[in-house]
């Protein structure tokens, strides 16, 4: 039965191919005198295969040009597709000069196809022989990302390993970060002066990790605030951040044993507009005169506007962001700045919890790998270019391949 079906398919395929060829106003590829300008060109060879690393529904057609592009009157290559199950044929695309491959994204994974490519020269079509039958399929793994997976697993593995070993009681050493030690000092001073603290978790929404990092630090700060009974004022630019920040502060107050002192109004929505938000925060600063300002999260151009206003009212300012372009402004105008990675590490530091600290040690493994790769890479490329060393070139190419991300 199955064999019969196959034979039937084959018959349909061959006959439909012949049908297509007979329909086209063309001459056999092999009859040389029939080529448009009488030149002596070989046949176009066509290969069709499933498109790599995709979700299915696409076939890649590739062909060699024996020289039709160079002929005057060349107008492009016509790609012709036959569905070998149904026998229907249609033209897919005419590709421009210089293109020798095409991804046909209009196929179904349930059918098989065969392709022809025709060179269009002076309204004539020089056909290739049909390609092998091909069926598109989806891949379960994007092979281009093999090195991403391997390196990612190594780093994540290191982080998880150190978290686990910290859980088992291994003592971990971490260096001090000046900006974090200043946080307690800043809250303490606000308490002494009887003035509020201002907290801004950046101007992005919850879909930015920096905002989440800011909120995790807010958790620690809010606990101190609750213990000291200081006032905290947190204007936000996005409603989701408002909801999340309220949960965070409330939790901190409960942990500190002061749930009654918590109030939803500590966090208030202002406006989603970047500079409208800045106008409001500036207003709050000069009117309420907070003793301490925290800017922890993702910031853009407003960083300096807020930090300079904070500076003008004499507040202690601690900032932290992973926006490289804004770091210089915070460094210039704030008392302490958490630079890049320090922002993400801060909450782990502040919590003092072993598992959290372990995760930082894991990230250090990643840094060690990066340093080694950069050292080896730059030295290898230098030697490779200066002395034409084969082995160094091999290392260079390996590294390029490992770290290329598509």
């Amino acid at each position: 039965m199955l064999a019969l079906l196959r034979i039937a398919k084959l018959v349909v395929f061959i006959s439909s191919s012949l049908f297509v060829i007979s329909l086209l106003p063309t001459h056999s590829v092999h009859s040389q005198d029939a080529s448009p300008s009488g030149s002596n060109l070989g046949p176009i060879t066509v290969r069709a295969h499933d498109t790599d690393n995709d979700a299915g529904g696409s076939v890649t057609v590739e062909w060699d040009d024996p020289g039709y592009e160079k002929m005057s009157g060349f107008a492009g290559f016509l790609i012709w597709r036959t569905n070998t199950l149904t026998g229907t044929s249609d033209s897919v695309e005419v590709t421009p000069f210089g293109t020798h491959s095409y991804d046909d994204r209009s196929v179904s994974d349930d059918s098989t196809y065969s392709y022809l490519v025709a060179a269009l020269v002076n309204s004539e079509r020089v056909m290739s022989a049909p390609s092998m039958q091909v069926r598109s399929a989806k891949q379960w793994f994007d092979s281009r990302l093999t090195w991403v997976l391997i390196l990612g697993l190594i780093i994540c593995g290191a982080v998880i390993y150190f978290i686990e070993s910290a859980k088992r009681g291994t003592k971990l050493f971490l260096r001090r970060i000046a900006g974090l030690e200043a946080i307690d000092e800043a809250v303490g001073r606000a308490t002494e002066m009887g003035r509020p603290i201002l907290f801004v978790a950046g101007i992005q929404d919850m879909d930015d990790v920096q905002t989440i990092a800011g909120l995790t630090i807010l958790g620690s700060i809010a606990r101190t605030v609750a213990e000291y009974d200081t006032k905290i004022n947190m204007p936000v630019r996005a409603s989701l951040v408002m909801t999340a920040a309220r949960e965070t502060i409330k939790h901190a107050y409960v942990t500190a044993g002061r749930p009654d002192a918590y109030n939803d109004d500590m966090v208030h929505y202002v406006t989603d507009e970047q500079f409208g938000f800045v106008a409001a925060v500036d207003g709050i600063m000069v009117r309420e005169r907070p003793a301490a300002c925290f800017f922890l999260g993702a910031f853009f151009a407003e960083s300096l506007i807020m930090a300079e206003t904070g500076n003008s009212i004499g507040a202690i300012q601690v900032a932290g962001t992973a926006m490289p372009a804004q770091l210089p402004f915070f460094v210039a105008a704030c008392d302490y700045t958490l630079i890049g990675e320090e922002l993400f590490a801060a909450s782990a530091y502040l919590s003092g919890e072993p598992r959290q600290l372990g995760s930082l040690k894991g990230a250090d493994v990643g840094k060690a790998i990066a340093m080694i790769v950069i050292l080896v890479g730059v030295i290898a490329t230098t030697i490779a270019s200066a002395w034409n060393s084969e082995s160094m070139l091999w290392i260079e190419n390996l590294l390029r391949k490992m770290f290329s991300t598509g």
Partner: protein
Amino acid sequence: MDSAIIGTWLAALLTLGIMSFLYKDNLYYKICEAIFIGISAGLWFITYFWDSLYRIAWIGVVHEGRYVLLGGVVLGVMMLMRLFGKIGWIARWPLAFIVGATAGLKMMVYFTTNAMAQIHGTVNDTMAAFGGSGLYDVVGRIVILIGTVTGLVYFYFSKEHKGLFGGVAKVGTWFLMITFGASFGYTVMSRMSLLLGRIDFLLTDWLKLVK
């Protein structure tokens, strides 16, 4: 009077109001600030309403039959439960969804575009800028190498910055300082052009002092 003239006057008065903050907080600024907050919050709500709620959720589900988006609507409604004290805790579900999605997605994005691409770039661009074999190029390569590696040493958390390691980290901070100084210096000019635009508006479009 046509609307353009009224508009220009309005724009000029608002511009001056915001600038008055530089002198000190005052009634004029407070009014401008209040207008700014009210109008902009409304503007964003309207934008969200038409772009997300109407175009994505309503058109997507009702007209295009993309029922997968209903999941978002359900999570969104859960968010609103915050308004009802007793079942307010259910609002944590959409929050958990968002934090999980952000963590998962951004982890991969940062890993490929920041870590891998930067390591790749260090090796590649170094050769673009300093690929030759003269003194200039050799010095350039060494500086990039030292700068990147010592900078990473600065961020190394699990070792005390003392002795040789501390010295290396110190060099790393110097490189970070050069980076900050350079970015600051480079952006000054573009910041000035913003102010230029505003003052030009006041003098030319509004007061017509400059032709």
